[in-house]
């Protein structure tokens, strides 16, 4: 592709500016987190004596160990089930083309536009009624339901694009529908399933509204929910708040560094398809 020198120059400059705009806020809270706990530093000022202990303190008061366990439990409760259900439904709608598939798809797609605020009020009363309010189930069960629109849509797009020959030859060999699904099409769907797993895990980990409304104890919430509670407690202690935010973001950062390519690709595809 042709790109003149001045174009490359402007392009690099622009990218650099965008990068700084993105990263600067993180640098700012990092620097702030090193100031003595309880002090009120300026936004961007290297402290005389960096208080690395703030991170340990934040780790302790945020009950980070418990938070990681809690969020992981919620992710483990939500993601495998969501993937299993949406893969099966996507298979039936996209590949088996059961009667009414088009209507079913529309019904699920409608859910993609639905703001969580639209259903959170009855979810509270439903959770109370079936006795799961203030337990992790109150987050897990509704999230599985809320992920069905995206999951089904995502998996359907994959199955609808599979070459018919694969299905036909398996049928000729006498494969039942279940064999066809489990032996032939699941192995072929590994890539979209992996992307879906990444997306749903992030969205679960970062879910705030449901955690806030349905679970009172921060240590039983998702990471985002716990962070909200942490802010409520330490809003006046800016260095500690910044340190806590960094500590709570740490797992996400690590995963981002390890999976960066897959994450970006998955999130982009996710938005284009969904």
């Amino acid at each position: 592709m042709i790109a003149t020198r001045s174009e490359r120059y402007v392009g690099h400059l622009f990218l650099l500016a965008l990068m700084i705009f993105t990263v600067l806020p993180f640098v700012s809270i990092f620097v702030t987190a090193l100031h003595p706990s309880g002090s009120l530093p300026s936004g961007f000022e290297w402290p005389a004596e960096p208080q690395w202990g703030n991170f340990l303190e934040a780790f302790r008061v945020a009950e980070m160990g418990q938070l990681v366990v809690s969020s992981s439990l919620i992710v483990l409760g939500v993601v495998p089930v969501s993937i299993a259900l949406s893969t099966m439904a996507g298979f039936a709608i996209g590949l088996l083309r059961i009667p009414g598939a088009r209507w079913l798809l529309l019904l699920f797609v409608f859910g993609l536009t639905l703001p969580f605020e639209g259903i959170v009020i009855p979810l509270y009363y439903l959770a109370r009624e079936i006795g799961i309010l203030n337990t992790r189930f109150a987050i897990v069960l509704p999230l599985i339901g809320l992920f069905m629109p995206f999951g089904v849509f995502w998996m359907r797009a994959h199955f609808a694009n599979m070459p018919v020959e694969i299905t036909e030859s398996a049928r000729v060999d006498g494969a039942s529908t279940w064999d066809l699904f489990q032996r032939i099409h699941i192995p072929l769907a590994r890539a979209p399933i992996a992307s879906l797993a990444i997306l749903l895990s992030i969205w679960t980990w970062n879910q705030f509204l449901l955690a806030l409304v349905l679970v009172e104890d921060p240590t039983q919430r998702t990471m985002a929910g716990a962070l909200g509670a942490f802010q409520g407690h330490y809003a006046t202690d800016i260095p500690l708040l910044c340190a806590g935010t960094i500590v709570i973001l740490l797992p996400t950062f690590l995963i981002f560094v390890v999976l960066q390519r897959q994450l970006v690709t998955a999130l982009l595809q996710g938005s284009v398809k969904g």
Partner: protein
Amino acid sequence: MKPDSSPPTDLASSDRPTLPRRRVGRRRRLDGSRLAGWLFVAPALLMYGLFVLQPLFLTIQYSFYDWDGVGPGEWVGFANYARVFTDPDLIGPIVNSFRLLIFFSVIPVTLGVVAASLIHRIASSRFGSTATTVIFLPQVIPLVASGIIWGWLLARPGIVNQVLEAIGLGGIARAWLGDFGTALPAVGMIGIWVLLGFCTVLLQTGMAKINPELYEAARLDGAGWWAELRAVTLPGIKYEIGVCLTVTAIAALAAFDIVYVSTGGGPGRATSVPGIKIYIEAFLQRRVGLASALAVALVLLVLVVILPVQRLTREDST
């Protein structure tokens, strides 16, 4: 939803059933796989029905009652809706959510188009791919964290004011999120930070798919950056623009996390948005019916904004 109304997502790009596939389907349906197919969908449909559709219908039902969440409710017809659209305390948040649309949707998408068009020629370079990964970072962290981080940056001693003072604009320095006049744009600023990188990267991948010959032809015709953008780039990324507008519009209208942690809707009701108001009315004030009416209004609002975007960007797209 009617079958002919454009769904909010991409039905067009995944191809319609081809003939042979259809015939296979028909034949197989005869030997009981129709039932099997439904068994495959049933679990997903059950969870969706129980935890999404059922609550949605309940929200609609609640919206016609005056209910405190404990005692028996009283049927009030459309009174809650009448209040939602007349009480300044409730119509205000709706107006605010439309103002947020400018910051969360219009600005990131416009800036994203400009940024993407400037960087897409170098995006495949080593520096380019690192940079696109980095500017994606705000998309991965919880919105709550973005709200906390910017709450500090925009505070009186925060970095935003420091930068302003450094460039001689110290006079306008203030607590941006606490000032009636600037709180909403300041919240909007957080939205820009969260969504700009996402829009830029998404639009840039759209541009990467445009046939390079089109650009060469435009160059031979002597087209400058602007003419090239209008004639080649914009038509080529129509679909991606539609996706960006849809995603960001939902983020604006249904905003909750960022507002909750950065301003809580204040000062006064300067940054109150439907999500915040629904939360306060339903769970703090225990006016469940009123909150539900606002929730139903929000659901409809999102549809009203999104469906035309889908229509416009989907029709005769390549």
